[in-house]
């Protein structure tokens, strides 16, 4: 994610280096430049990202993202609503949304978003005045979101791996690459740290993608979602768990989990 400090003419080269080092997604983030003045810069940045095989996302500016055929747009809680953005962008472009609280995450589950950002993990000059939400919010977002979660906010060497261990699928950084003497090397080191970190288990729960920390039982998984096991039946990969197995059997990545209960009804069109 770009900063405001790097001079415009240096940005494409910075992006080329970051992508060469292993960045998968580039977000153009220039809070102090009007959208109308960003078009040429955005094109150059997009080309640099695409040349290295990375996705290119524009922060805030939906019309700009569409005009330059970016891969997506990132929205803050105070920006355009994702539904409106989706209507303007069509079905193909990615829409990301910043979240700072559990309610931001659960509201986002009903919106047309493709990934969530969770942060700021640490206080950061990029977001002056916004309180840090710590890794707790990364865990919350990872527990409740059915789309990928990007941890963000003052992250770099040492904390990038912690973010993954807290459930993040991806880690977003600004300063850790933009202010590095060797952006490619910084990106490479971050990528290695992220890949080495213990990832959360990814499974399908009642048809939706969900995550939970490694070693979780069904009791643990449901407790994260504030659901008790009383009265529920759990089926994993087609096999029904006995009650004593709910706290004992660990879920693993790729599991297909169904949690059912009895409801009123006797009619096939329920």
């Amino acid at each position, binding site marked *: 994610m770009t900063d405001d400090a790097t001079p415009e003419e240096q940005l494409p080269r910075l992006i080329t280096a970051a992508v060469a080092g292993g960045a998968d997604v580039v977000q153009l983030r220039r809070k102090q430049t009007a959208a109308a003045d960003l078009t040429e810069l955005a094109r150059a940045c997009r080309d640099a990202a695409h040349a290295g095989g990375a996705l290119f996302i524009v922060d805030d500016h939906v019309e700009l993202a569409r005009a330059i055929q970016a891969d997506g747009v990132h929205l803050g809680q105070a920006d355009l609503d994702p539904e409106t953005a989706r209507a303007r962008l069509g079905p193909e472009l990615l829409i990301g949304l910043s979240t700072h609280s559990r309610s931001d995450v659960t509201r986002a589950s009903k919106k047309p978003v493709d990934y969530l950002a969770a942060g700021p993990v640490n206080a950061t000059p990029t977001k002056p005045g916004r309180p840090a939400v710590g890794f707790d919010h990364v865990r919350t977002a990872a527990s409740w979101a059915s789309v990928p979660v990007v941890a963000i906010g003052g992250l770099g060497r040492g904390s990038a791996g912690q973010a993954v261990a807290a459930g993040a699928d991806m880690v977003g950084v600004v300063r850790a690459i933009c202010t590095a003497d060797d952006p490619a090397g910084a990106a490479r080191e971050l990528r290695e740290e992220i890949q080495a970190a213990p990832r959360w288990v990814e499974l399908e729960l009642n048809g939706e993608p969900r995550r939970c920390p490694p070693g979780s039982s069904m009791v643990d998984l449901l407790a994260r979602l504030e659901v008790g096991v009383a009265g529920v*039946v759990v089926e994993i990969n087609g096999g029904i768990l006995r009650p004593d197995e709910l706290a004992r059997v660990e879920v693993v990545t790729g599991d297909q989990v169904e949690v*059912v209960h009895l409801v*009123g009804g*006797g009619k096939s069109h329920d």
Partner: protein
Amino acid sequence: MTDDALRLGEVRLQSRLIHGTGKFPSPEVLAAAIAASGAVMITVAVRRLHLDGDERSELTGLDLSAFTVLPNTAGATTAKEAVRLARLARAAGLAEFIKIEVVGDAETLLPDPIATLEATRELVSDGFTVLPYASDDVGLALRLAEAGAAAVMPGAAPIGSTLGVLNPHNMRAIIERCPVPVIVDAGLGSPADAVRVMEWGAAGVLVNTGIARAGDPVAMAAAFARGVQVGRAAFLAGLAGDRREAGFGASSPLAGMPGAGARASV
């Protein structure tokens, strides 16, 4: 009064009205209707737990342990799905009862007779007490009984239609011919429908929409209960006009069927 309980598997039901639990205006109305009906067996469905937000279940406030619960496989469109739902229901800690519902046609919700028979066979061998919901077809009812169904549940009319008994001849023939209890399910719209099938000797009825969508579901539940009792009493008393000596004769001679042996000429 002497005991006239309905025996199903291991249980004896003191009420022959089985109460549905769907489509009621509120959990409170549902609970009051069940109480007014005197039903001791209720049907429930198996569904995914909603994991986002606390959607209120219709069964809130209902003590399931006070009833014989008859889970159904509503939503299944294949025998395999029905078997899966049955096993999930059993794991919920209920008795071994299962009402098989396999929809054969999404538009009318009428059952798939072949898949119903397949699911019946499989679940009987799996130890369930199986009550298949079926088309009002005599031959099918006999096959389901032969497959080990504890009772057969022919539909009077399509689910939710409240049209009453659309084919009285078939329904009556099923009741008379079927060696296991016949519980008339689906489509009963008024207590008069319940009286009618109970008079014919149905072992019980299952009512959901007829009660749930009535002007006053609680009062209608009580009315259906009385209809079931009246019809049962009439059946036990023996209807005066019930001696249909004419019967139904085959329109083609049965004698002389190739390979039929001597029995065909009886």
